[in-house]
């Protein structure tokens, strides 16, 4: 028995029984989209809470603990506050671009979640270029950041946006190449297939051993840079630029940028889980025989593990300087990545995978 599947099936049958086919399909799309939006608003909010709690654990503090037990409603309250706040702005902004920018950022994050493989049944779209789609969509966000910095008519925002542009464009190469290394091993771009490959041969990080581990490390570094988080948070380096590209934003528009950062983190962590840690598969197949066990739990646990790692980075490392950031990418990560790709190809050719 698979309860979630049954529920969705019941709703599906019910919708198609009361409506004409076309209308029912569209209704279903809307319901799925609304459910995803609601889910990710909650995911974003609770990642913020998790970050604050993790930060507190690292910093000898308690973290939020006033609103609800263990502070679990704190970020909800913050979100409510942000929604009800007035949207103020500069007088000399480029109005159209200024208002457009947050939507670019949040939409690029939200579109990407459509292909997330939570479990075999829980995936809205299983397109055959899933990993490519994720990669392509998640890099649209930088346009929003550039627009935000440019249209704010603020020099600090502008510096932040320019930094973001060069950072994201550089590190996309590394993210893409390390993903390509793993795709070489699986022979597929479809997310569900990448995961199913790992059911027999073990997780890809074990199957691909040395090159896979190198690819994972590069992916984590580049992925952290992609999401503009410390130690690569030059975009909003608060001790240098105040708040960087979103200095001039307030209320919900600011919240979009903020939420997008956390959803992007979720995206990067999910890609890492799919490519290296077997997606929804249980470790050593311990729950394979339990049919009712929701596999998405494993996916979420692994994603949270990766996210915790990224938070650990953030609260431990100092920030890089902009030229050091570029040196790291173009002089170290990219050449290593290219060599690693060739190494992976040789290993697959000689059939040395585990």
């Amino acid at each position, binding site marked *: 028995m698979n309860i979630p599947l049954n529920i969705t099936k019941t709703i599906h049958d019910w919708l198609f029984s009361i409506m004409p086919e076309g209308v029912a399909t569209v209704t279903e799309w809307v319901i799925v989209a609304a459910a995803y939006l609601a889910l990710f608003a909650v995911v974003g909010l609770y990642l913020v809470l998790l970050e604050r709690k993790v930060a507190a654990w690292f910093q000898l503090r308690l973290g939020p603990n006033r609103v609800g037990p263990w502070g679990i409603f704190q970020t909800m309250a913050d979100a409510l506050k942000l929604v009800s706040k007035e949207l103020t702005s500069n007088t000399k902004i480029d109005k159209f671009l200024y208002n457009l920018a947050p939507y670019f950022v949040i939409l690029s994050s939200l579109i990407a979640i459509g292909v997330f493989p939570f479990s075999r049944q829980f995936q809205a779209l299983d397109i055959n270029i899933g990993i490519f789609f994720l990669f392509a969509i998640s890099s649209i966000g930088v346009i929003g950041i550039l627009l935000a910095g440019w249209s704010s008519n603020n020099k600090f925002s502008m510096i932040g946006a320019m930094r973001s542009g060069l950072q994201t464009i550089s590190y996309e190469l590394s993210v893409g190449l390390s993903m390509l290394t793993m795709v070489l091993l699986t022979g597929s771009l479809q997310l569900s297939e990448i995961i199913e490959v790992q059911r027999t041969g073990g997780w890809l990080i074990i199957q691909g051993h040395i090159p896979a581990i190198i690819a994972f490390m590069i992916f984590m570094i580049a992925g952290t840079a992609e999401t503009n988080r410390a130690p690569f948070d030059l975009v909003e380096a608060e001790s240098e630029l105040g708040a960087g590209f979103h200095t001039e934003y307030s209320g919900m528009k600011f919240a979009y940028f903020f939420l997008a950062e956390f959803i992007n983190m979720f995206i990067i962590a999910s890609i890492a889980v799919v490519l290296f840690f077997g997606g929804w598969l249980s470790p050593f197949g311990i729950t394979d025989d339990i049919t009712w066990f929701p596999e998405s739990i494993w996916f979420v646990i692994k994603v949270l593990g990766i996210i915790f790692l990224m938070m650990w980075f953030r609260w431990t490392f*100092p920030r890089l300087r902009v030229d050091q950031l570029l040196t790291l990418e173009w002089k170290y990560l990219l050449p290593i990545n290219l060599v690693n790709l060739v190494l992976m190809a040789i290993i697959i050719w000689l059939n040395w995978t585990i």
Partner: protein
Amino acid sequence: MVEKEIVNKMKTEEYFVNMGPQHPAAHGVLRLLLTIDGEIIKNVDPDLGYIHRSIEKMCERDSYQQIVHLTDRMDYLSSHINNEAVCLAVEKGLDIEVSDRVKVIRTIISELTRLASHQLWWGVMGMDLGALTTYFYAFRDREYINDIFEETCGARLTMNYNIPGGLMYDIHPNFVNRVKEFLVHFKTKLPEYDRLLTGNVIFQKRTKGVGVLTKEDAISYGATGPVGRGSGFACDVRKKHPYSAYDRVEFKEALFTEGDSLARYKVRIMEMWESMSIIDQLIDNIPEGDIKTPTKAVIKLPKGEFYQRVEAARGELGVYINSTGTKNPYRVKFRSSGFSNLSVLNHITKGAKIADLVATMASFDFVIPDIDR
């Protein structure tokens, strides 16, 4: 060579950025007028006056006992040392000798103040470079010192513990034990600072070779304290012109010759170790004696000029008193370390990146009310 040619051919427009008066890296109301070309700094022009309280002018109005309390508000992180400087200058003018007990207690508390100040600086240095966690670790340890101060004189930051002729009160009976407790605690925690920040590759990359100040420049600009000593300029007043009980303790002057931000960082870390060793030597044998040498209720300094220099946490603090023999000084001038150190900033950050400016400022450890009295 090729790289240089390309840079010369590309002509980009310079622009002004107002860094401050409200900026997270300035730690106060310091306004820097930056001329920037992309990320590269062409000129740094500090603009002062946002927190000017005319302390020197106020001193001319006040009695000598009252002046002491004003100096708290200059470099508030070494408030005790500022108080001590004024008291020493006044005692010099009155030609009175304080008891050994006062000297030793003053020295211990001065060193505790220096430790607290350097701890705060360490936290803020990490924060400026993006490692926010350091701030909280530093505050955990600083709390011990502030608690000791609170127990001793009732205040945690602006202490007013010194008066011309001695101390306001005697030390609390718990003082010795609590200082010892703190030393035991901090000796295990200071290596933690190194593990968290000093050894970090990113930190080393951000500070090594950044904001290099040569020894000659340090001397000609009058940079003192950890800034001067990071450039190899031996300028420790405690060593060169000992006051209070510094002549009876053994300690090394922290000297590094590289002159970059990392050297200044290392100087302060080493000074923390030295401060602990100074306290170690004094805490067990605080001599008995009066805590106050009686002075007249209205202090009148004889006609003349009096100067006293002390080593505050950020460098040399000079107190100049010009007296005409009345109950108020005719002119008081403070030679604050922050002002001279700030004057170096433009010289050493030209051509650096914005992030380098922040790193350099963090290693200079500015306290703005000290620069702008």
